[in-house]
């Protein structure tokens, strides 16, 4: 599903290696936390997976696609095969919630019938039906993140990448969001959550890959996290 093989990443004009020869494999249907303190290299893993950055050396495969070898024109289609959730929600500010969730379907070229079937389903799943025609700016953080999860999932991706999905949310909403991710995982979607929040990791008891200073220092099934901030 996701395979990092001896991946090293050094940004241009920098002597520092953000990732140093890391390797890991995520099975289909797994739920994995990537944890670590600030500057550990967690978000770089997300950027490499979504092809925003290219590794300096090593190989990355997602769904058997060699990510580094994707041509520019192939990247949009590749990204459409993933679901991505961000800390800042990243809903399109000029579109209401319905159109935000419909957006990935529209860029895929889905028919109106398909859009009219799938969007209400996902609005219902994340309990946002009554907010369908609200603008993102009118919603709370939790509501926006629920809408962002619906948008990430509406194309039924095999893997969902969540970069600090609860970073801007209070503990109650955080628990709610994590519960959505758990349910989605139970439906068969592989989930990769990047976080530095120990409460989130400890409450879920899922596989944990811990990064420190660019190295993988721990890879543990049903792990916890005590370092935190």
């Amino acid at each position: 599903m996701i395979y990092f093989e001896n991946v090293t990443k050094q940004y241009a004009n920098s002597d520092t290696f953000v990732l140093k020869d890391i390797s890991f494999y995520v099975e289909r249907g797994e739920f994995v936390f990537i944890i670590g303190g600030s500057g550990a290299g967690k978000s770089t893993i997300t950027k490499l997976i979504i092809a925003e950055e290219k590794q300096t050396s090593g190989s990355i495969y997602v769904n058997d696609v060699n990510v580094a070898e994707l041509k520019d024109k192939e990247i949009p289609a590749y990204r459409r095969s993933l679901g991505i959730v961000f800390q800042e929600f990243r809903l399109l500010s000029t579109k209401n919630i319905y159109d935000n969730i419909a957006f990935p379907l529209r860029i895929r070229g889905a028919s109106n019938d398909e859009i009219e079937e799938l969007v209400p389903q996902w609005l219902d799943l994340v309990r946002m039906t009554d907010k369908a025609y609200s603008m993102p700016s009118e919603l709370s953080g939790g509501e926006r993140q629920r809408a962002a999860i619906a948008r990430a999932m509406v194309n039924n991706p095999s893997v969902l990448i969540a970069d600090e999905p609860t970073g801007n949310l209070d503990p109650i909403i955080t628990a709610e969001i994590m519960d959505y991710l758990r349910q989605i995982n139970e439906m068969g979607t592989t989930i990769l959550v990047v976080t530095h929040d120990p409460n989130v990791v400890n409450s879920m008891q899922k596989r944990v890959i811990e990064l420190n200073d660019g190295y993988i220092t721990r890879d543990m099934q049903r792990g916890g996290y005590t370092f935190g901030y």
Partner: protein
Amino acid sequence: MDINIKKLGSFIKDAFDGLWFNRNVAIASVVIVMSSLCLFGAYIAISMNVDYISKQFRSQYAISAYLEKGTPDERVEEIREELNNISNIATINFISEDDALNYCKEMFGDDADFLNGLEEDNPLRASFDVTLKDLTKAGETKEAIEKIIDVSWAKNNQDFVTKILNITKSFKNGSFVLMLLFSLISVFIVSNTIKISVSARKEDIYTMRYVGATNDYIVCPFVIEGIIIGLIGALIGYIVVLIGYTYCYYMIAGYIESLVSIYKTHQLALLLFGCFILFGLIIGALGSVYSVKRYIKA
């Protein structure tokens, strides 16, 4: 670009959503496009009229070649042939001694009594009025005419014509440079205004990229937005210029109609409409593409 009708409909909807969401910037952009195009329209209207007036002067301009008294008819025909051989002469009109007297009578109207009786011993000379192809060569042409035997002298108002030609030329050169400058400044300002609108939504552009939108999908709504801004600005500017021109026409036309005429509003309307729509469209589309391009790497 792989764009079908369904996508185009979606882009247009997105463009209107974007315009509404950023309506303050959109209104500012429309005002700037409109102002730029008003300047552009004023330049076109003035420039066209200067050309038109200049053409009228050119067509009215003639050299009169006066013949010796008593030149026989056969010789008059020979002189016509010789005039025909001068390459810069466009048209030739013969005015006999009788015609000249009649013109004088017409000119003096009720006060023409003192001309009575001159029919028997007409002191006026027959002449050829010739118009020219190239007015800048009026001096040489006059000299050539005066060399013809039996032409006693040729008369023109060279200084006046030269002045008109110089003024026209200077105006056209000067106003073209000014217009070019204004156009560049306008495109720069419009492009920057649209850039503000695009910049306000750069996070949206990044988000679109991350969820797998192609560059076409990202750029098209912005381009349509720019085109809509350009067209609305062009239409309002067009109406403003037409009203302004009509007002100016009625102010000026009365004073100068005995001398020259200028274009009526309806004669310029179609040309101005075409220019405004084209210019508005280009400003809007180019401004958007230029502004959004920096955010759309893969």
